């Protein structure tokens, strides 16, 4: 069973997983907790709201990145969760998070039912450069439910920065009432309403895959949502010919 290779010969895995060297993450700012003030709360759907936070020392972020949010009780008990950043980097010193109201949820429950404008929370970030889009390559974005949040940051960035690079968003929601950011979608977006038309399928993606649908150089695909959606959508992409090493996935748990 001992094989004849020399001890130092590197192993080459059968598939290369793309580590995006092009993305620089500032780990300095990510290490520091900062006090953020809620400056606006906007209802998106009956169960989803957007929280706009003023973060005085925010160092900026790339569309797609997330942060960690922490709540502290009087007795020192803390609860912290990850949330994707919904806003585009705009240098305003303010960022937006969009949260599902999870039934019985400790952190999302507090923000939806107790928090009001003027309250403070703590945040650290931005975190993880892997699921981030600097705006350099054509991007095919697939999201379901609140999974659309980091993808919307990318769409907003493309618009705000006036980028020519193609972006396509396929967003899945149960009903029109559950569709987050419904008013903001334009030609780049395909909406899949699962209650009436069933879940995302190969036909929804067909226009973007294959020889006709691809932009020059192909897509960088970003998939975000529940694990169930992430598994399903990433499999459809692979079956449609999208290379595995050009699919980035953010699972909300």
């Amino acid at each position, binding site marked *: *069973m*001992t*094989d004849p*290779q020399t*001890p*130092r*010969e*590197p*192993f080459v*895995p*059968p*598939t*290369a*997983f793309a*580590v995006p060297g092009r*993305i620089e*993450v500032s*780990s300095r700012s*990510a*290490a520091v*907790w900062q006090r953020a003030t809620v400056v606006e709360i906007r209802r998106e759907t009956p169960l989803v709201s957007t929280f706009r936070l003023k973060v005085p020392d925010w160092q900026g972020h790339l569309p797609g990145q997330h942060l*960690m949010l922490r*709540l*502290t*009780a*009087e*007795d*020192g*008990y*803390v*609860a*912290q*969760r*990850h949330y994707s950043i919904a806003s585009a980097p705009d240098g305003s010193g303010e960022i937006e998070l969009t949260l599902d109201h999870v039934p019985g949820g*400790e952190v999302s429950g*507090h923000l939806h039912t*107790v*928090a009001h404008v003027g*309250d*403070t*929370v*703590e945040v650290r970030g931005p*975190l*993880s*450069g*892997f*699921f981030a889009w600097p705006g350099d390559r054509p991007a095919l974005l697939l999201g379901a439910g609140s999974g659309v949040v980091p993808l919307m940051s990318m769409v907003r960035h493309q618009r705000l920065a006036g980028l020519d690079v193609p972006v396509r968003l396929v967003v899945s929601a149960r009903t029109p009432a559950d569709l987050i950011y419904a008013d903001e979608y334009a030609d780049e977006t395909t909406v899949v309403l699962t209650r009436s038309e069933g879940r995302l399928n190969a036909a929804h993606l067909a226009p973007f895959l294959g020889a006709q649908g691809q932009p020059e150089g192909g897509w960088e695909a970003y998939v975000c949502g529940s*694990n169930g959606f*992430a*598994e399903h959508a*990433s499999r459809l*992409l692979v079956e449609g010919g999208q290379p*595995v*090493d050009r*699919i*980035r*996935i*953010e*699972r909300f*748990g």
Partner: protein
Amino acid sequence: MTFEPTRGFTGRARAADRDPRLPPGQYDAGDGWPVLSAEVTPRLAAADWTFRVDGLVAAPRTWTWDEAHALPASEYRGDIHCVTSWSKFGVRFGGVSLDTFLAAARPLPEATHVVAYAHTGYTSNLPLSDVTGGKAWIVWEYGDEPLPAEHGGPARLIVPHLYFWKSAKWVAGLRLLDRDEPGFWEQNGYHHRGDPWAEERYAGD
């Protein structure tokens, strides 16, 4: 640094009766087991799975599924902790202790660190001392069931005393080095070691 409490936040669990198994900043995921991988779940058949130990070892080796299963069985019963803040208590993983594989490959004296690599190309770095002495396993069972693919099946590494991103899914091998070489998440802003009790989450912690 001390923090001002968040107005009106009481928290689900009180600090006083916080479960002592819960490291700081973590919450109990209960029966849930969130999936957190940034890659497409590979469809890797057990028959195609291999595990290799190479680098600074006297006898680099590759084990097939059957060869690995012929080694003495070992299990981990205990808790696991993910950097995204959930912990899971009292899990059981069945497989083989990493010590068994390493004993066969015979690490050279200069080996100090390892890079665990996955069949997908994912990597994670660890000090050798964190994966020896009964602290790490290659596992293919979760409870009494085969390890599900989305959780790293057919086989993954587990290093339960560190945050779970160190426990490479779909593990393909371990390379022994004489230096620390950051892996996938470590190059993406995560802490090099990842001790949940010291809250070593991100670079700079």
